[in-house]
């Protein structure tokens, strides 16, 4: 189909063309309607003219293959695809500005950068969960719709259970110069952390107003990022706080193993700036010296890194966010020890896990409680110290643990909300011994098991006061 043939009012397979939207290099876009469907819709028509780049055709095929497989709020809904003679894809029209609209207001404040970053990270985690790696993440491919970031244009994407049509079509790397990850430059299209690199580039630009690796057009120049590190964001904009520089530079690590293990873990840090473990990345103000870069160049060109391929699902499976809900009331020592044992077991099998130690302070009313006790001490601080003390029994690297004291009149709902908001994969919590009141009101753990969006392990103390309770823990899938 030639775009010059298309006119408003024309009907293609029941879809009426309403108005043309801006057209990209590889396709033209029309807003369309169909009487049986009142969802706002977009028709994407690839420009398949003789002599057109093969990637145009393949991109259309890939999108036709992947879009119907994606569900949830972070990708447009697939509606229909045309046939061989009349290729098109109809999808939900996602209303809202793209992240491109933010690029002329840079530098953004650190809070804004973190907020946008967390939204995009959640969107990435959602598609990774569905076996898809985007592989061409850039501002124009992210639409901001109310609370969510929606990813569009899956033409260069990869579904790890389906043939990779892009890889088979091309010899060299495919992507966009400013955002492409080092491993993609080396021809690897199987790592979900490539999307985290691209997100790091976006965050870098939002925070500083400049591109970390420029915008090289020619693929030959994409290789520079394998050895040349970017100017640290604080070197470009001193307003960038150390925690944000830490996050951005971790996303931009050349070795995917050194980046965040999952997009959910990245989002976790973006949502808890005060808990970001700072390393030497946070304090850098200058790029590495020419000599360091030279040695890196020598090492990489002589000995290009080899990578083992893993399924996207396995990347996510061994990097869960584990929430340990710890009861700090006195008199439950056995239970808190049993909880530590259970958490140790969970972490032992999952090397890239993050642990969030959470204590919920039950309060009578939300706003009227005084923050300090009679002696003027902040009860939150005391609990944080206790939480850290509890976690000493767990052999896990400090940069993988965070501590949170929450306040709520309803601890169970608070835990469930927290788990949902932070994409927690597994909650480990204790169940106190049974009591008359508990049987009547229902326990916190029972509420959490019933409502949590993830796996919940409920731990009981082996020699709890009541002998009637079975020992050990029981795991429920909620």
């Amino acid at each position, binding site marked *: 189909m030639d775009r010059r043939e298309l006119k408003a009012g024309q009907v293609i397979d029941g879809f009426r063309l309403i108005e043309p939207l801006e057209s990209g290099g590889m396709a033209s876009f029309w807003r369309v309607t169909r009487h049986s469907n009142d969802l706002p819709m977009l028709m994407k028509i690839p420009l398949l003219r003789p002599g057109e780049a093969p990637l145009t*055709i*393949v991109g*259309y095929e890939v999108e036709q293959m992947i879009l119907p497989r994606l569900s949830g709020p972070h990708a447009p809904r697939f509606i229909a695809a045309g046939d061989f003679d009349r290729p098109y894809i109809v999808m939900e029209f996602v209303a809202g500005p793209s992240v491109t609209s933010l690029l002329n207001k840079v530098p953004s404040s650190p809070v804004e950068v973190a907020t946008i970053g967390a939204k995009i990270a959640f969107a990435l985690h959602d598609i990774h969960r569905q076996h898809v790696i985007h592989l061409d993440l850039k501002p124009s491919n992210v639409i901001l719709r109310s609370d969510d970031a929606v990813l569009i244009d899956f033409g260069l994407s990869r579904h790890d259970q*389906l*043939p990779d*049509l892009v890889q088979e079509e091309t010899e060299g790397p495919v992507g966009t110069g400013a955002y492409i990850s080092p491993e993609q430059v080396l021809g690897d299209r199987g790592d979900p952390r490539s999307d985290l690199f691209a997100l790091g580039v976006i965050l870098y630009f939002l925070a500083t107003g400049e591109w970390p690796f420029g915008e090289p057009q020619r693929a030959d120049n994409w290789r520079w990022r394998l050895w040349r590190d970017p100017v640290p964001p604080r070197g470009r904009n001193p307003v960038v706080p150390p925690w944000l520089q830490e996050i951005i530079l971790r996303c931009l690590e050349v070795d995917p193993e050194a980046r965040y293990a999952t997009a959910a873990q990245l989002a976790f840090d973006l949502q808890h700036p005060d808990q970001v473990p700072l390393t030497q990345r946070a304090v850098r103000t200058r790029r590495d010296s020419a000599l360091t870069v030279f040695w890196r160049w020598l090492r990489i060109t002589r000995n290009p890194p080899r990578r083992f391929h893993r399924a996207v699902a396995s990347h996510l499976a061994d990097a869960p966010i584990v929430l340990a809900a710890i009861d700090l009331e006195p008199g439950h020592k056995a239970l808190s020890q049993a909880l530590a044992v259970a958490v140790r077991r969970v972490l032992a099998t999952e090397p890239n896990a993050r642990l969030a130690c959470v204590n919920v302070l039950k309060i009578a009313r939300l706003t009227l409680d005084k923050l300090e006790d009679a002696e003027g001490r902040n009860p939150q601080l005391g609990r944080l110290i206790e939480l850290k003390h509890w976690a000493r029994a767990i052999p896990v690297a400090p940069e993988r643990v965070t501590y949170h004291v929450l306040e709520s009149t309803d601890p169970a709902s608070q835990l469930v909300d927290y788990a949902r908001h932070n994409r927690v994969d597994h909650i480990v919590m204790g169940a106190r011994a049974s009591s008359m009141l508990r049987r009547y009101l229902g326990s916190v753990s029972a509420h959490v098991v019933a409502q949590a969006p993830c796996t919940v392990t409920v731990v009981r103390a082996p020699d709890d006061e009541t002998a009637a309770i079975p020992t050990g823990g029981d795991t429920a899938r909620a």
Partner: protein
Amino acid sequence: MDWAVQRHSRNREALEASLDHARRGGIDRFIFLGDYVGYGADPGFAVDTMMREVESGAVALLGNHDAAIASGTGGMNSVAAEAIDWTRPKLDSTQREFLTQLPLTFEDGGRLFVHASAHAPEHWEYMTDVAAASRNFMATRAHATFCGHVHVPQLFHRSPTGKLAGFQPVQAVEIPLLAQRRWIAVIGSVGQPRDYNPAACYGALDTERNVLVYVRVPYDNETAARKVRDAGLPLILSSRLIEGA
């Protein structure tokens, strides 16, 4: 679901389990890709089942082991040849007659079904690499070819620009057979696996949505293996049913 594409239906337990599985999954048309006899201990049962299926509308194609019953074991390895010589006297004349009249190919709406390859089907070429896939694409205009012969599930495809590639299908994942591309689906084996997964394999094709799924069905492979051993067939044919290769 519309069609199931099956091959290598030689052992009774695997055949029954996968036919039952496919019917329960709502499959209403069957194409069998050949090799009903040759490695299993119940050749009579397998052929009788095929005769019944064909009578009720299924298509059964000829495989090289089926052909060898009448034409001899030339070109076969010693294990296969020994199994054919064991099988031949176990079949009555009606069963042998049924095997000899089976067609080599079946074509329907841009889909070609064949035991080995569209390229000289009677030469039983193995579809193991892109070179063999390329010969198949040249020999037919079909949009998708479904074949067996090789015991490892594979999916070859050819892009509109002529690029050829192979892919190891993941079981139970819907694969859209895109219209712009041409496809060769090597369906795994019902009861004679070689991919270290002893479960039976068949392909389920949704002709309306043009989607293919490689389905694996666990079955009582221990009984099937014991029967093969008790029948005095070569031992490798029995152990393969347990180990899946």
